[in-house]
């Protein structure tokens, strides 16, 4: 039995990176709560329509917006059109993220750029592009998907860890800057979650991780989605600027 957050019904929430992994699970969970899920996509229109239909089958509404998280012009055009013609956006989940695991000594400048541009700059640009809208919307809650790696660092993940740590400073600043308008901003730091991203890790790495997790298992993406719903809802109305680990005790 899932917790029901009644104020999420019809709440308009933009989720980035909703095509798969944690982002998709969040979109599904929000749909089940009756929210209006807005998600961006890059290429394939038919996949976006399929996701829209899958979400609406759970409940609520879903709207795909076509823009790349690294393209500010396309982003602002799509968002302005939506917020002017449909509804203000009162929830944002900055979830889109990429990772390219490689030792620092092999890390190339363009790999650093693409990781920072997507994971950190993309979230910053999107939040910036929505900030005017946030002043008009009510009960705004922003959730930034960081990583436990952003807190503890990790071998072969220097750029990824830096981007995720950057999100924490960003989120805390947004929390302070917009608090007087009742806009909240929080960070979730997932640990080892069963997604495509962690599937690419070698079995040896997975085994080592599992050994260091007190709860001795990987998490289901839905467990992160539940926490996201809580932070987007008024059940967390006095929580802002917070960083919440969901890692089974991996980093204590």
């Amino acid at each position, binding site marked *: 039995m899932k917790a029901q957050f009644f104020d999420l019904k019809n709440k308009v929430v933009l989720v980035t990176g909703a095509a798969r992994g944690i982002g998709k699970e969040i979109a599904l969970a929000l749909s089940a709560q009756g929210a209006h899920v807005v998600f961006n996509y890059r290429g394939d229109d038919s996949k976006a329509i399929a996701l829209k239909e899958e979400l609406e089958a759970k409940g609520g509404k879903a709207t795909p917006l076509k823009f790349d998280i690294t393209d500010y012009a396309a982003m602002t055009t799509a968002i302005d059109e939506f917020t002017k013609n449909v509804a203000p956006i009162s929830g944002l989940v900055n979830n889109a993220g990429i990772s390219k695991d490689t030792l620092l000594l092999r890390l190339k400048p363009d790999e650093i750029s693409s990781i920072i541009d997507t994971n950190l700059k993309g979230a910053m640009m999107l939040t910036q592009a929505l900030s*005017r809208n946030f*002043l*008009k919307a009510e009960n705004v809650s922003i959730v930034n998907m960081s990583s436990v790696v952003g807190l503890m660092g990790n071998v072969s993940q220097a750029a990824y860890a830096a981007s995720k740590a950057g999100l924490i400073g960003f989120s805390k600043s947004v929390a302070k*800057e*917009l608090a*007087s*308008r009742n806009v909240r901003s929080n960070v979730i730091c997932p640990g080892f979650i069963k997604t495509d991203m962690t599937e690419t890790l070698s079995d040896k790495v997975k085994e080592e991780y599992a050994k260091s997790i007190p709860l001795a298992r990987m998490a289901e993406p839905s467990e992160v989605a539940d926490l996201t719903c809580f932070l987007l809802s008024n059940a967390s109305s006095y929580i802002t600027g917070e960083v919440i680990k969901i890692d089974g005790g991996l980093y204590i």
Partner: protein
Amino acid sequence: MELQEKVVKLVSEATKMDAANINLNTSFVDDLNLDSLDMVELMMKMEDEFGVEIPEDETENLKSVGDVVNYLKAKSH
């Protein structure tokens, strides 16, 4: 209602300051203690009321009620 009256009314509603104490010389920062976020919100209200767009970098030059009235007059011509 005249443009100036409308602007004063909006400023009064936004700041909870008696409209009688607001005139063209009233400064947003010095007299009304508005911070930069308050200013953005006030300009958004002006945009909605008068159906104009006030770009962010022009907001910086609007320091008094008179500045806004003049700006809106210029825009409407």
